[in-house]
């Protein structure tokens, strides 16, 4: 075990994967000698050479098109998109190509080796274009897997699982926690399961569900709520697609209440999908409406980002409202 921040854990996962399998390649804008603008790929070019870790030209649709081809050929590409806000030029390659490759070919060809990494989320004074949380855009796309880690240990285990997974995975990294989140991380290879939520804390009054950086917000909100005597069950969804309906439903069947929170705007955010599914699965057990605490239905602001974000006070209030309904 070693103390690592999230960037180090990610770097370590990439290093581990590249050492174990020479078909693993890392590339993207500035990921070469520079090691990426956040330094997630530091030293990988130095260690594995320019053919396996390299800068690409500045063209996201090309990066993912190239990665799709590489994956179809049998390589194991780990492509970086510099900010999740800049993944949209590659939307067609991801949604029409990556996601449908295996299905449309009747399993003759697939791009299962592909992993796409991108830092996402707000709280870093990034404004409209360095703050977005685009997971819901992809969660409407059968064929993709979407994963978001909450801390360094999770980041390494989930990223290694993503790289090994036989399906293409979008791996969104909470950049606000890149350096802020520090923890013990095993130095050897290990994988954490995709598609499985994790119950972080058991409780009986209300279930609080989130993912990524929002788990930290939840932690603090729950601390406040517990001081009020509210017993909270906390779940990290981890995989947005496919998501672990059973774990969430089981929890809500027990608590009767659910608060979901994400940074992305409310309307069309993934909390909507979860709420819709859970109200159906747990209808007779729900004691209050499923609450969503999300970003406002606006682009991401700058100066007033604190007001915009679903922070701990908002989550705390939603917990209280849910219990007092």
């Amino acid at each position, binding site marked *: 075990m070693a103390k690592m921040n999230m960037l180090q854990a990610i770097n370590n996962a990439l290093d581990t994967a590249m050492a174990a399998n020479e078909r693993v390649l890392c590339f993207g804008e500035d990921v070469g000698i520079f090691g990426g603008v956040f330094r997630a790929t530091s030293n990988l070019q130095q260690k594995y050479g320019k053919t396996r870790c390299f800068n690409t030209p500045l063209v996201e649709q090309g990066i993912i098109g190239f990665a799709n081809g590489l*994956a179809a050929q049998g390589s194991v590409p780990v492509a970086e998109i510099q900010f999740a806000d800049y993944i949209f030029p590659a939307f067609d390659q991801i949604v029409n190509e990556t996601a449908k490759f295996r299905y449309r070919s009747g399993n003759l060809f697939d791009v299962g080796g592909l992993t796409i990494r991108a830092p996402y989320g707000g709280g870093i004074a990034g404004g409209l274009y360095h703050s977005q949380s685009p997971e819901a855009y992809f969660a409407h796309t059968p064929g993709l897997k979407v994963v978001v880690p909450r801390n360094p240990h999770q980041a390494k285990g989930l990223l290694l699982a993503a790289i090994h997974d036989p399906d293409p995975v979008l791996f969104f990294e909470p950049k606000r926690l890149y350096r802020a989140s520090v923890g013990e991380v095993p130095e050897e290879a290990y994988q954490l399961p995709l598609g499985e939520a994790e119950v972080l804390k058991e409780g009986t009054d209300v279930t609080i569900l989130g993912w990524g950086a929002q788990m930290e917000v939840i932690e603090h909100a729950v601390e406040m709520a517990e001081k009020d005597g509210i017993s909270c069950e906390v779940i990290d969804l981890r995989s947005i697609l496919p998501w672990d309906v059973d774990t969430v439903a089981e929890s809500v069947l027990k608590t009767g209440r659910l608060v979901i929170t994400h940074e992305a705007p409310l309307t069309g955010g993934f909390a909507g999908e979860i709420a819709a599914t859970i109200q159906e699965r747990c209808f007779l057990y729900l004691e209050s409406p499923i609450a969503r605490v999300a970003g406002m239905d606006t682009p991401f602001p700058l100066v007033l980002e604190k007001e915009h974000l679903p922070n701990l006070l908002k989550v705390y209030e939603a917990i209280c409202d849910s219990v007092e309904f």
Partner: protein
Amino acid sequence: MTTTKSKTVHSPIFTDGAEFRISTFKLLKQDGSLYKGGKAPDLGKEKALRIYRAMVTTRILDERMLAAQRQGRLSFYMQCTGEEAAVIGSAAALGDSDMIMAQYREQGALAYRGFTIDEFMNQLFGNNKDYGKGRQMPVHYGSKKLHYMTISSPLATQIPQATGYAYGQKLAGEGHCTLTYFGEGAASEGDFHAALNMAAVHRVPVIFFCRNNGYAISTPASEQFAADGIAPRAYGYKMDVIRVDGNDVLAVYQATEKARRLAVEENRPVLIEAMTYRLAAHSSSDDPSGYRSKDEEAIWREKDPILRTQHWLKSHGWWSDSEEKELQERLRREVLETMKQAQKRPAPALETLITDVYKEVPPALNAQFEKLKAHIRRHPDAYPKSANDPAITGKPASTQKGEA
């Protein structure tokens, strides 16, 4: 830092490259003789006939299947007609294990590689022997064993994929390359720019083969770009380029053969622009009379690439009228008979609705499938294609699978 070592001038001179017109490489005249100074590639009779047979197969398949579409047997069809030399001449210059990533109008390349009429038909009818499991529209072929990537409708997406695929081939070091076909229309997509630039920067063994057939559906090349074709774009990437008469199978073959050497031996990506013409409608849904003249079509019908090849073969004594007749009749028969069989085959298993979305079917999708099955069992009459599916009746499936 800029690496340019360009000359200095002291007056502001603009250039548009018009003086750098790219020539067209031609070998074969329409009558089957060679241009003076032209030297035919050393194909040999066997290969020449393999090429020719693939051309005729493609033409006849296209004719018959368009007719089948008109008769309502098929929902949709797209013809390669007029472009057989461009497609088959290039495919023939590759190694049979090189990867081909095509647009959709390149069934000739598959025919050349030995995709059988039966295999074509199964895809066209989306029956239970279709490798693609009846999921895509007609002409979206794919074959793993023939190294032919399954077609996808979104245009140009395969071009950067070809760059990536070829990068992988380069690392694998087995001497293979990738050739990707696309139309002059698709070359307007952003993916084209990404693909060529990345290939040039990363020195990837890929051949970009543009079929410039003059139209993208109704849009003439003159409304697609202002330049002299697609070829000059290569200069922008410092990529080797050649323009070739696309109706001239020998020129196409030789250009591609040489391009392949540049790609495989020197890791130099190459752009080939084949000047040709889409003699048929864009697809069975299209009617070209709305946007081009019969006269224009007639000019190009005179340049038929198959006849041109045939004349050349005959000039070598490698082909005769009776062989032609025999081939055509055999193919027509085979197409018709195979079509009848393919049409009779049942639809793919109901289960194919949910497989291959992921390697393993996820629980929620499985639950959706269970719900669907129960629904179909309640309303079998409403689902004639699947009411008798083993997943509904519980009776065992009769699996019929080939090697794709």
